[in-house]
Each structure stands twice: as C-alpha cells, then as structure tokens.
C-alpha cells in the first residue's frame, strides 16, 4: 500500500510552494519528512530557524494536568504554622476571589512526613507519589497572574490570558514535529466523564496552523473517529479501491502537474491506512503484563480509569508521540467546600497512576527523555472559605516535574509560613514555560511564529521577562 517512489516528488518540490500549501508543509513536517531541522525551507517557518536550538535533555512530554487548583498546603507544602493558628483570624492581607466568604486560618487535616532519600515532605494523601519522590523536582513557588480559572488556565497552557493563543503543546509540536508517521504528534487523553473547563481551548493551536492542535482521543478502543473501515467491505475490496484511487489520482497529476495538495492527499491515504492499525495498537492494553496493569491500578475501580489513561500515555510516548496531555472532567480540584474530603477522593484516584507512570517510564528507560508534569492552574488559600473550603490563590502553587533532564529528588522554592505566597526562588508561569522549552532544546525567545505583525511566542519575553530556571535542570 506504500506509494510508488514516483508518487512523491522531491522534497524541494513537495515543500517549495507557499500559497495554499501551508497544510502540505505542515503535514510534511509532522510526518518527520523534514527531520525537524530543515524546516527553514518553508517560508512560514522561517522565523524558527534550525531546531532544536540546543542539545535537548527531553524529546517528549506527558502533562498530567489537574484542573481547578490543587491545594498545595494539603498536598505538597507542609505548613505547621497553619495548624498552630487554625481557627484564628489571618493576620495580614489576602487576595480572595470570593469576597464575603473569607474565613479564619484553616489547618491541614493531613499529616506530612519526609519521604525517600531526599526527605521531601509530602502529605499522607500521596503515598504513591512518596515512592517516586526521589525522581521528581517539586516546585513550591509557582506564581500566576489571575485567580479566575479560565484566565489562569490560558496562562499556564498558552502564556496569555486571552483566548485564541497556541498552547505550549502546540508550540512543542510546531517546533519538533512528530517522530511517528502513524500517530498524531499531540494527543489529548480526555476524561471519559467530559471535557475540562474551557474545553478544547486547553489544547488549541490558536494562531499556529491547525495541524498543531491537540487531537483528542476518544475513550474506548478506537481513539479516533472513522478509524475502522465499514464492516461490509472486505480487505481485498478495500485494497482494490485504494489501487483504483491511486490510478485516478495519477491521472489527475498528469492533468494538473505541480499540485502539492494532491500529493499530500495521496500520502494521506497511505498514512490513514497505517493509522488504522497504529492507533488501535497503541490503545490496546492486552499486551501489557498483569504486573504493569496492577502497577497503574487497573485492578481497582477507583484508579482504573485514570490508570488506563496514564498507561496509554506511556504507550504513546513509547511510539514517538511528542506531547500527551491528560485532563480531568470539569475542574475537580476546585475545593471551595469539602476541601479535605475532595482531596482524599482525588488523590485516591490519581496518586497511584501518576506515580506508576513515572516508575514505568523509568523501568523502560524512557524517563530520561520524557518530561512528566503534574499540576494545576493555581494554588489555594491558607484560610477557609465557608466552613471547610479553600479559595483560589495565584501567589503560590506547587507543581512537580519528573524526567527529561530535570533534577531528581529536588525541591525548589518556598512559600511563607502560611503557604500564601511564594517568597523564595519565585517561578512565574512564563519562567516555567521557558524552562520546559529549554529542556526540549528550544530557546523560548527564538521559538516564534508571525502573529499580528510581529513574531509571536509562548513567553513574549518583552512583556513577561521570562527566563529559564537553570537550577531545575540537571
């Protein structure tokens, strides 16, 4: 089913056209035809230059995104002062989101203890993360600029409050393309229960070409729509159809020479045919051993769903997918009420699979090249909201990173005694982006694309002053 060599013109002819051929070029790039570096042949990518810019320490990303704002002082950032002052009025100013529901200091109901060789303190709700603590870099000092979910989400995904900007997954895909011709480069594994807050914008390519947007795999074993041929067409008949189609297209090519779109479309049929086996194969967990499945908690109804997606994420990265992102439906970490109970449930659901992913990647030697990121759009306040909730907090947020050249068993930054505000080694969302790109071998200042008459970028350094935090990397 592979095309004749004569089908594909030389690469120059394939990519040398500008008008209307953007899709073609982007496609070629995503297919790895460009090898990621020769992309300067295409005028629209000329601003990018040769990529990667530096020697990368990572070439893939798995982002376990935690919508809603996980409560850092109940999970990652132990604050004894909080419990000491529990129930007392908070001394000092606080930026609250829900004015009028401002309560007193709320201690954490969870015990913290030092874990692993590194002795990083984690809450008792994260017994499995405790097992990988020596593999992660825990950042306790991430700050953002809004306490509004949507705005903070857009900021952490795309570096801007405004809707319609490319997410960092799109930037990475744009810069590095895919190393697997049969799978999308940027895959989103959405929660079967529904989309997260702000929907498809969380993986939008904004004003980057549409091919760089995340492809949401649907739950179930097919992943992509229209993957299976209709049941009443036999393989032989389909094969004859494709042969015939090729004849017709060849005839077209003679009538309309130099048609790059047609060439791309012909290639597409070949790829589509391969995707029909590649995607189900990536999603088919039957070849995984029982012990692997157990590691991810597939034997437990509480962890099975998230565990399945974490395991699929590993299988995708293993096959060369560049960027995988997991989301939860709605914004479950948004604990305005019943903070403790909600956290307990969510940790029960996500802790084991998240840790399993890191362990599994390490066992397979993939962790060195794969960044795993765990975190949400902002943190929460040290005081109570209503009886038992916590309100949004943009001044402190804890996020962990594993693999891909990030330090192991390392803790970066700290907050004040109440965990309200990052005070030491403050890391803005923009700094975080710059650092992640650097790990992938990309200079955040040089990774640009023309937008609104100037080179648009993820970090927009003139405004954000973003700079990579080298101390996070090995």
């Amino acid at each position: 089913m592979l095309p004749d060599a004569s089908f594909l013109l030389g690469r120059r002819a394939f990519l040398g056209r500008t008008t209307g051929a953007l899709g073609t070029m982007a496609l070629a790039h995503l297919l790895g035809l460009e090898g990621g570096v020769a992309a300067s042949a295409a005028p629209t990518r000329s601003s990018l230059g040769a990529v990667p810019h530096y020697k990368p320490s990572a070439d893939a990303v798995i982002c376990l995104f935690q919508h809603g704002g996980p409560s850092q002082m109940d999970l990652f950032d132990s604050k004894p002062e909080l419990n000491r002052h529990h129930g007392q009025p908070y001394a000092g100013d606080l930026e609250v989101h829900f004015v009028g529901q401002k309560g007193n200091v709320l201690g954490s109901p969870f015990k913290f203890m030092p874990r692993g060789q590194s002795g990083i303190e984690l809450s008792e709700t994260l017994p499995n993360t405790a097992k990988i603590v020596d593999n992660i870099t825990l950042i306790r000092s991430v700050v953002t600029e809004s306490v509004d979910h949507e705005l903070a989400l857009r900021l952490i995904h795309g570096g801007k409050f405004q809707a319609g900007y490319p997410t960092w997954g799109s930037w990475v895909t744009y810069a590095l393309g895919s190393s697997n011709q049969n799978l999308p480069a940027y895959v989103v594994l959405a929660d079967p229960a529904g989309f997260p807050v702000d929907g498809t914008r969380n993986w939008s390519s904004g004003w980057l070409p549409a091919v760089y947007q995340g492809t949401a795999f649907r739950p179930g074993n097919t992943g992509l729509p229209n993957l299976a041929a209709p049941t009443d067409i036999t393989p032989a008949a389909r094969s004859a159809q494709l042969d015939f189609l090729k004849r017709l297209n060849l005839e077209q090519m003679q009538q309309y020479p130099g048609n790059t779109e047609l060439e791309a479309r012909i290639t597409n049929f070949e790829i589509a045919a391969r995707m029909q086996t590649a995607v189900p194969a990536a999603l088919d967990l039957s070849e995984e051993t029982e012990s692997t499945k157990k590691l991810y908690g597939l034997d437990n109804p509480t962890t099975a769903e998230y565990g399945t997606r974490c395991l699929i994420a590993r299988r995708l990265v293993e096959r060369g997918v560049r960027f995988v992102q997991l989301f939860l439906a709605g914004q479950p970490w948004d604990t305005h009420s019943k903070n403790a109970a909600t956290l307990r449930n969510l940790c029960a659901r996500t802790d084991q699979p998240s840790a399993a992913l890191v362990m599994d990647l390490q066992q397979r030697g993939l962790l060195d090249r794969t960044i795993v990121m765990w975190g949400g759009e902002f943190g929460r306040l040290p005081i109570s909201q209503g009886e038992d909730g916590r309100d949004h907090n943009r001044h402190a947020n804890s996020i962990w990173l594993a693999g891909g050249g990030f330090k192991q068993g390392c803790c970066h930054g700290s907050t004040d005694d109440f965990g309200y505000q990052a005070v030491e080694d403050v890391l803005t969302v923009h700094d975080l982006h710059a650092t992640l790109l650097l790990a992938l071998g990309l200079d955040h200042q040089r990774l640009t694309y023309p937008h609104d008459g100037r080179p648009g970028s993820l970090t927009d350094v003139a405004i954000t002053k973003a700079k990579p935090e080298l101390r996070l990397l090995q």
Partner: protein
Amino acid sequence: MRRTTSLILMVMVAGGLVVATGRAEEPIDYLRQIKPVLAERCFACHGAFKQESGLRLDTAALAIRGGDGGSAITPGDAAGSHLIQRVTASDLSERMPPEGEPLKSEQIATLRAWITQNAPAPADEMPEPDPRDHWAFRPIVKPQVPQLTNSVWVRNPIDAFITRKHEQLDLMPQVEAPREVLVRRLYLDLVGLPPTEEELTQLDADSADGWYDRLVQRLLEDPRHGERWARHWMDIWRYSDWWGLGDQLRNSQPHIWHWRDWIIESLNANTPYDEMVQLMLAADELYPNDPDKLRATGFLARNYFLFNRNQWMEETVEHVGKGLLGLTLNCAKCHDHKYDPLHQVDFYRFRAFFEPYHVRLDMVPGETDLARDGIARVFDGLPDAPTYRFDRGQESQPDKSKVIAPGVPALLAFNEHAIQPVSLPKEAWQPERQPWVLESYLTATQKNVAAAEASLAKVREQVEATKQQPAVAGTSNGPDNSSRALEGTKADAEAELHVAELSAGAARAELTSVERRAAAMRAAWAKEDDSTGEVKLAEAALTTAAEAMQAERQAAVAKAQHAVAEVEWKLRRAATDKKGALEKELRTARESLVKAEKNAAATISPEDKYTRLVGAKWTPTRFLSSTGDDPQVEFGANSTGRRTALAEWITDPRNPLTARVAVNHIWARHMGTPLVATVFDFGRKGSPPTHPELLDWLAAELIDSGWDMKHLHRLIVESSAYRMSSSVTGRDNNMAKDPDNLAFWRRTPIRLESEVVRDSILSLAGTLETSRGGPPVLPADQAASTRRSLYFFHSNNDRNLFLTTFDEAAVKECYRRDQSIVPQQALALSNSGLVHDAAHRIAERLSKRSTSVEQPPVDELEFVARAFYVVLGIRANDAELHASTKALETWRKLSDRTAAGSVDRAHVNFVWALFNHNDFVTLR
C-alpha cells in the same frame, strides 16, 4: 552654532570626505549595522509616525539635526552625543528605549564607533513615508478602467485590470474551463451544493448563448445562495452558539441562531452591506421596535462573557476593528500602535462606543419561556459607565483622572459625527408592551388550564372505573386481603382525583391571575399614556392593580394546596425508607400553604405590588463575583446613540477601509486568493494589495451600486478571470514567473470548506433536508441529521467532528480558514457512515437501468461516465474510463456482494472511490 557645524560635517560626509577622527576601526556600514537597529527600537516614537520631543531618527541627517533637546548625534563625538547618553543611561526614567530591554552592548558599541567615524550615511537617504499616506488610509477614488487591445478576453472592468497586470508581467491567461467545470464551480461557489442530476439535465438542454449569465442569475436568486454566503460572513463576524460550563451560560447567547437566520434572509433579500453593518451595530437604536431587525445585533450579543467585562469589551473592539475595518486596534491596547497611526487612547475611545451596551433576551410571539426561545439583542443598559485608559493595558491600572469619550482615530475622522442620544419608544424599554407579550402569557396559561382539565377528566374516568371494579378473587393475598386491597385502591384513586382537581384549580387560578395582571398592566399604561390626567383612568389603574394582587395571592394559595396534595399523594405510595424525606417535604409544603393563605387574607397595602409580566430579560453578568449575579441592569428610555454614530462612520462612503475590506473578503471567496493577503489587517504591517487599482475599483463599485453585494458577485463570476481553467498546462512561462498565481493567470483551485464537503455528500445522495432556518441541530442529533451543516450547533465546546476534520471555522476568529491536509480527512472520506451511505444510494440510482448483478450491464461505460459527471462534475477521459471498467471487473471477480442488498457492490466501491478523488474536495 552646534547645528550648523553638524550640517557642515554632513555635507562633508555626503561628499565622501570622511574626516578621519575616529579610531582606526573597521568602517561601520550605516545601512546594514545602524539603521535596522534604530528602525526596530526607535522609529516608532522618533520617525515619520511620531516625533517625540520633535526628534526623528529615520535618517542620519535628521538625527544630527535633532529635536527639542538639540542634536541627537554629534558626529565625531560619541560620548557627547545625546543618543549615546540616553541609550546608556542607568536611570530607568532616562533610558531609551523606554519599553523592553535596553539596547545590547554590542549595538551600543557599534553606534559609538559609527558616530566616532563621523556618522557617515548615504547622501540620498530618504525619510520614512508618512503613515497617513498609507494606501489603505487614503480615500477611495474610482480608478480609470484600462483601455486594452485584448478586448476578446476582457468581459468587464475586472478583466481589464487583471489583463494589465498580465501584460506587465508578460503572462498569458489560461483558457476558459470546460462547461461542466464552470457549472460545478458556479453551483458550489454561489449555493454551496453541486447541481443535482435533474439540474444537470436541464442545463444540458440549455446551450444557447447566454446560458452562463442565465445560470448566474438563477443561482443568485436561489434561496440556497443566502445559506452558502451566510456561512462566509458567519466566519468573519464570529458566529458562535452559546457555551459555558454544564448548563451555565458563559459565552455568546442562547437562541443566537436568530442572528444567523437574519444573515441568510438579508443576503437573499440582497440587503445592502452598509445597512447590514448598521443593523448589526445599532439596530436597537435605529429600529427599536422591529424584532426582525433586532436579530442583527446578535453580532454584539455574541461577545457576551459572563465573568469579565474587560475581556468582553476587548474582543468587541478587536473584532469590529479587524472584521469591518481591517484595523488592528487591538495592537494599541497597551501602548501606541507600533505601525499604524493609532494611539493607545484610540483603543479606549473606540471601546467607549460599546461601553454602555448589555445583552437581553426579548420574547418572541407565542413563547413566554425564554429558555425555549427569545431574541438575543443588545441595549444600552449602562449609559453612564465610564471608559478609562488602562495603563499598559492592565485592567487593574485604570487612569481614573480622565473619562475617555467615544471617538474614532483622528487619522480616519473625515467629519464630525455628532453622537445623538436616541429616545426609545416605550415598547423598546417596556417590552411587555409589545402587543404579543400579554397575549402569549394568556395563551400559555389557557393551554395549561386545558391540559390540567384534560388530565382531570382522565383521572376521573379511571376513578369511576375503579369504583365499578369487583373484588378480585384468587390473588395470593387471599379473599380478605383482596377486598382490603380494593379498598386501598379506591382510596388511592380518590386521593389521585383530589390531586388532579387541585392541579386544575391551580391552573385556573393562575389563568385568573395572569388575566387580572394583564388587565392591570393595560390600565396602568392607559393611565401613564394619558396626558389629560383623566381621573377615571387613574381609578381604573388602582382598582385593577388591587384585583391583580388579589388574584395573584389566590393563585399562590391554589398552587400551594396542589403542592401539599401532591406530596401527600407521594407519601401514600412511598416505600417506608423514603417516607422520612417526604414527610419533611410535606411539612415545608404545609408551611408554604399557611403562609400563602395568610398573605391572601391580609389587606392590600399601597406598597404591595403584583408581579408584572415581563417581555424581556436582561442576561445577568457576574463581573463582581463569580458566585452571584451582578445588580440588575435596567432597560432605559434612552439609548446613547454611540453605536449609531459609529455605524454611520464605518459605513460612510468616505471611510477608506470599510468597502475595501468587504470586497477583499468577497473576492477571496470567489477567487481563492484575496487581493490583500492580510484580510484583517490593512495597516502598514499588513500586505499591500496585489492589484491596488482593482481593489479600489471594486470598492468604489460596491459603494456606487448602493453596497449591492449580488451586483459584485455577478461582476466577479461573469468575468473572464473567474472562468479560466485551473490547469497549468501550456503555461510554463507563467509558472516560471508567477508560480503562486498572484496575478490570476489561471484559476486557483479551492479546497471545499468543511460544510460544503458534508452538504455535497448528502445532496448527491439525495438525502439533504432542504428546510431553512430555526434552532441549531444539537450535537447529539447531528449524526442522524441531514440538514445543511451551517445549522449544526457550533461553539467553542461543541463542534461536529466531521466538520472539524475539514477545518471548519474557529469561533474565536476566522477571517480566513486554515486549510490543512491531514490523515483524519482521508479516514473520514474512506470510512465514515456518511460517505458509505451516500455511495450506496448513488450507486443504486445511477445503475437503475442495470438490474442483474450477475450480468455486467451493457451500459457499464455509461454508468462510469455518469458517475464521474454527477459526483465530480467532470467528463471522464479515456484513461479514466478504462481504469474504471478494469476496477469494476476486479471487484466483480472478488464476488464480494454481501450486505449490499439489491445494489451492485462493484458500483458502490466505484462511487466510494470518486468521493475520495481529489476533485471531490476541490473546487477546480
């Protein structure tokens, strides 16, 4: 003196007599090493566009001449040059440039060296042109149509302009496309669907002269034309159905499809473009009492955002700017525009036009439930809301020292458009006065009464039947239990009857309440509208109000009685473990009843008011807190008139941008390539037009024709330029000179839009539903729906997968669609049920004359030729015919005929291949 010295030095430099006062260094190349740095970092404030402190740096001479602070550059004296002092200043308030990073040290070193070398520059260096002279900001003047010798090819002025470019570049226009290609082109372009077989047959019969123009005329009058072109404008105007979180509305508006229908109807009625723009921006001020026209303001209602006014306003300014004016006003939000003559304050002046507007839902006749239907429209709810300039565009840093008044950028202000407040008719701000509103309430409550009475009659019948029923013998409970059970059943029936009676009673009381309240409202209006002070009217208003209140209280009692009876009824039948909760519910219901009864018995005091029936509802916002609605925004008797003034300015024939932007959009969709590539940016950073005179001629023609869009469509599609073949055959010279066809020497093939791909499949299958307008097809119903794709629910959160695969419009902004070619498209065309089903139907229809599957029909070739003609709109050549018959043979040998029913499986396979043919998704 200093200035004189500099000038003398300058002359020396120009004469090439460089005084060697500098250090012995490599000579600095001004044009390569200096000017680009100054251009990037300094020209925005010290150039043609702006001259802060009177200083320009866009030529070396101007820099030496200097500004208010004297010379910026003293040739030979780097340390003494102001420029060097300012770029190296450690005091941040002194340092230049004020924004962004300081100049790099190597840049400063080069500057120093250049000055030390006496700042040499070319003698003929020209200052930057004045941005006000930018082509798009100059008035539209209709250019002379070129007189040319190639008059055979030139059908209309468009061709004359195109030909002149051909002549300039020595290009030979491609020949006219074959008739069948032209037919398909016109159909897909003008109505968005391929011709049906019947239409093809009719067309085949008409080959007399003028067939082309007759077809154009027919298609422009076809109501499907409005549907096709509405989708184009919906891209540009950012149509989106509502979205939010779960049921919470956060963006756009429910029922905004009324705006979509208005676009379709307006295009079919050939409503002038200027009028459409005016209505979209200000129908509430221009036609406050015309619900049909109010639908147009969906354009602004679409920008509604529950949580943040600033974001709402920013999007409004940005997209009115980009969509209607080709102006990137959004780039002036934080600072002055870097390229265009727009100051930061211009962004906020523009915003001030929109500052007062809010969104509400107006009732439509026959529906009182705004959750089911209503017209989303705008109104000036906050006429006094101030607009402030935000320092660096930060919402948190408003400059409250000055309220910004609405206004247009000075550059584009060709006359004073006075803003005239509009006094609204009463029906506009008391929408309950619209004649249908009270009627709708009465009809709705009457229907409820009828329904309640009907169900009461039914229950009564059942109860009678139960009473007649003898004891059932032989049940497992035994005879004694059986009679007890019957007793129980009878008691149940009585209780159910009681509930039904109270339900009907509550419905009747509600009807009385609505009737009385309607009467009271009418009496109040009579009094309010009476200028004579007629006492009787005042008395009637008082009396009817009291009656309304009484009736409303009685209705509340009846409703509460019904509620109590219903809970009692539930409790009777509930399982033991559910009884606790129901008992609690019953207590609450009884308390409510006591309260209602007490209220009904109380005397009516002057402060008491009945609940008025409403004709519209403000769409609440949550700017202050995300947990509760903001204070109600009232409907005022006046509108500020700001948006009317803005609309008049935008659609004034003297506005240099509006018509140019509109014709560029129209041209791009007919011809595949716009004349100005940056369709939303006609500013200095945008692309220049490939055919400036043609653009201006088209813009002037649009205005002169009374903004007649069908006139423009006709002009374009009837031109020779439009009718060319898309082939490159025989045009090697053209290919070498203009491979991207920017000079339009051939037809640019267009990838069909996602909607056209899907609609064409359905149309060819014969299953396309042709009904027009109405609520969108919800995501869950889309798989089974055969309506045109523009009727599918389309928002940020809900998009149809098939359409998304073929690059449908992004809702945030879509001035030109992306055109991707991804494997998912191949999958959709190979495997989707949509294509599969269509292939079956078409194969069946086209092979009707051949009934036997075993015997290949004699007219196999005819089948193949017809299929090519119908599905792809082309006449198959010999090679294609040959390949086709061979493929059919192959399939027949596979004897793969399962589940194909009466249809020839080989034919189905064949039609499938045509759907996957490149020409199916290409407008040749």
